[in-house]
């Protein structure tokens, strides 16, 4: 079966039903291993002490808030270019999850910053650009709610998502382009990670666990959105059939 066949919502729902239990189980297993490594295997940092343990949730949340927006950007291209039936379902479903990951990254970063930097917040490039990302997520969620027709809302949100994607390279390279309290990249570097393996491995396990959690929640949210559109289509069909005259013959597309 080709990837394109999953454009059919019913086939996609069947796919979700098969895949979801396995993904959920693997995600829980990786979280158990990752949390054990984070608290009982990974050593203290020689400067930060135990506070470095905040990194095992802060960094994955920060990666995921950007990955989620990247998924929304690809979905938006799918909406505008290929008119893929599930593209705007994917984008709409990802937005609240991305907002939650961005919230986690901001809060854990703030709680890490206070003991290490002496402040919860500074208006530097990295922190401000991530806050802009959070506001983008909230704006997109609001836009979807303000338009009743999901197809029109999907197109408008896709355009706004693509404009907002300009923020992704700003977030990534802000620590290189401007002076900032935030440390530069130490894992995703051209010359390899600069973190000791004892700290790197728990971080990578937690990152994979967070990634799987994103996919589990995203698939569940997409399934809900498909069901919501079916409810809407059935209600419109029922309302249309109840009206006398030629309008009653109209059948809304699902």
């Amino acid at each position, binding site marked *: 079966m080709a990837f394109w066949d999953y454009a059919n919502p019913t086939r996609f729902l*069947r796919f979700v039903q098969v895949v979801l239990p396995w993904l959920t189980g693997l995600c829980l297993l990786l979280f158990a291993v990752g949390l054990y490594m984070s608290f009982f295997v990974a050593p203290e940092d020689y400067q930060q002490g135990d506070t470095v343990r905040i990194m095992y949730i802060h960094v994955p949340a920060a990666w995921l808030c950007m990955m989620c927006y990247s998924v929304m950007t690809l979905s938006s291209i799918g909406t505008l270019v290929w008119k893929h039936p599930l593209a705007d379902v994917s984008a709409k479903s990802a937005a609240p999850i991305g907002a939650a990951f961005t919230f986690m990254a901001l809060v854990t970063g703030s709680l890490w910053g206070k003991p290490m930097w002496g402040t919860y917040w500074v208006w530097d490039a990295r922190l401000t650009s991530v806050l802009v990302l959070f506001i983008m997520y909230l704006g997109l969620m609001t836009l979807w709610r303000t338009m009743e027709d999901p197809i029109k809302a999907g197109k408008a949100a896709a355009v706004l998502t693509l404009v907002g994607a300009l923020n992704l390279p700003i977030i990534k390279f802000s620590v290189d382009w401007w002076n900032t309290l935030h440390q530069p990249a130490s894992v995703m570097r051209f010359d390899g990670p600069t973190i000791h393996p004892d700290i790197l491995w728990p971080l990578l396990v937690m990152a994979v666990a967070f990634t799987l959690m994103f996919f589990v929640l995203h698939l569940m949210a997409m399934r809900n959105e498909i069901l919501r559109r079916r409810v809407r289509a059935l209600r419109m069909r029922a309302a249309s059939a109840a009206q006398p005259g030629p309008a009653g013959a109209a059948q809304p597309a699902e």
Partner: protein
Amino acid sequence: MDLGPHAGFILASYGLCLLTVLVLIAWVRLDKVAQEKALNDLADQGIKRARPEDGSTQVS
């Protein structure tokens, strides 16, 4: 386990993340229940899809 002088910051970080994840899980679970209930209510009124659903949801 001794988390040092900044234990409060570490525990608050993990606690807030756990809370956020629980809210996300509750959101998707409750939304699924609401949509399935709406579909089943419509099916009870005789309003069904032309091609019956044979996936995970009980709509007819």
